[in-house]
């Protein structure tokens, strides 16, 4: 146990540097996934069949390919087409794209949950389209979107470890490097696991609180 604590003291600074990268890549990928997800979801409700169809194809394609393969493709294959991203950006792009399709489905479900007749009622009060979105559709859709969004965020946080395979120096990667150079597998991976928990548990709690706050009374 004293060994563990002594080693932990040595390893933590390195692992913490990885932790920051994990947080950064997760937040950037989350933002990208939300933006792309909104685009897919809105395209899915377009009145043009071609736009709807394209959105469908993108969602099914991205959902059908493992995240690992998507990352490899962006990092190793795209440079051959003249698109070279550094490891961090490739990780953000890959994770953001992969997760955008789950976000899109979630957004679609959220917006679909808003009762048409409530929108009509708001119209009959003379509310403008913009005001209806802001005062009615968004608050109601968010109640449906938020709980799964919390889960998706936690999954993305954990899946950011996949970026270690394309040399992003995030938490898992730093752990791997430490483990091979010190052979202290148990200490290193226990710490890595604890650090992930330290991030995901608060996220779970936050999600639960948001859910309760937004629940319809």
């Amino acid at each position, binding site marked *: 146990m004293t060994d563990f604590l002594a080693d932990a003291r040595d390893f933590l600074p390195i692992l913490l540097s990885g932790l920051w990268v994990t947080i950064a890549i997760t937040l950037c990928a989350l933002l990208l996934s939300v933006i792309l997800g909104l685009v897919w979801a809105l395209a899915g409700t377009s009145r043009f069949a071609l736009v709807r169809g394209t959105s469908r194809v993108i969602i099914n394609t991205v959902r059908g390919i493992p995240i690992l393969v998507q990352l490899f493709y962006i990092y190793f294959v795209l440079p051959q087409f003249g698109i070279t991203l550094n490891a961090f950006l490739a990780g953000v792009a890959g994770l953001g794209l992969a997760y955008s399709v789950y976000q899109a489905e979630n957004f679609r479900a959220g917006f679909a949950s808003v*009762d048409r*007749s409530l929108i009509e*009622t708001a119209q*009959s*009060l*003379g*509310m*403008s389209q913009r005001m209806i979105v802001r005062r009615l559709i968004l608050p109601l859709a968010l109640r449906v979107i938020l709980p799964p969004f919390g889960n998706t965020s936690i999954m993305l946080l954990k899946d950011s470890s996949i970026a270690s395979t394309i040399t992003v120096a995030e938490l898992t990667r730093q752990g791997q490097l430490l483990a091979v150079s010190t052979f202290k597998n148990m200490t290193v991976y226990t710490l890595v696991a604890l650090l992930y928990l330290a991030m995901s548990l608060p996220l779970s709690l936050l999600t639960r609180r948001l859910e309760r706050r937004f629940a*319809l009374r």
Partner: protein
Amino acid sequence: MIELSCLHKAFGQHKVLRGVTFSVARAEVVCLIGPSGSGKSTALRCINGLERFDRGAITVDGVALGDRTLTEIRGKVAMVFQRFNLFPHRNVLENVIEGPVYVQRVPRAEARERALGLLEKVGLRDRANAYPSMLSGGQQQRVAIARALAMQPQAILFDEPTSALDPELVGDVLRVIRALADEGMTMVVVTHEMAFAREVADRVLFMDGGVILESGPAREVLTRPQMERTRNFLERVIHPL
């Protein structure tokens, strides 16, 4: 004050309105009756611009309904729906002040005062802080009426306001509507409540197959209908067995 002339509307092949013409004078209460699918709700929804029509014209208070006058007309004509449609994420008071504060830019304090007065009028002032899900259907519909009144409209359209209510709650809502009639509010009411129509309506219009078949003073149409189809309809509504 409300005039519909020769309104036509089709949903695809199905012609819902086939030349509907009627007018409603200020302070008049008109009940639209008729079998389901006869086009009465559609006609009502056209007045508020919730449904577009293919041909014909609607004017409210001298203003012709069109894309550019839609907001203006919605400010003059409020609507009460069959399923109440209260905003579930806002409490009773917030539901009532939503239109005045966010559409008409009435100061919040003033809107609140007025809203509480209206809630008093529909007998629900003590439920101002309740959420719609905590209210009975009849209470929700009365809040919806207060919400419509809060816009200070010149007329109110009711789309089967009691059809979604348990029978014992119908009376509370109808009493509120009758009180409005007594105050001289202009109203168009799509309803299946014949007793209410007979008592409160100045005029009853019987619609069937997308046209108005018969119209006249409430008592006359309801007790001495001229047309065969009106007689059949009333017979079935009054004696369902």
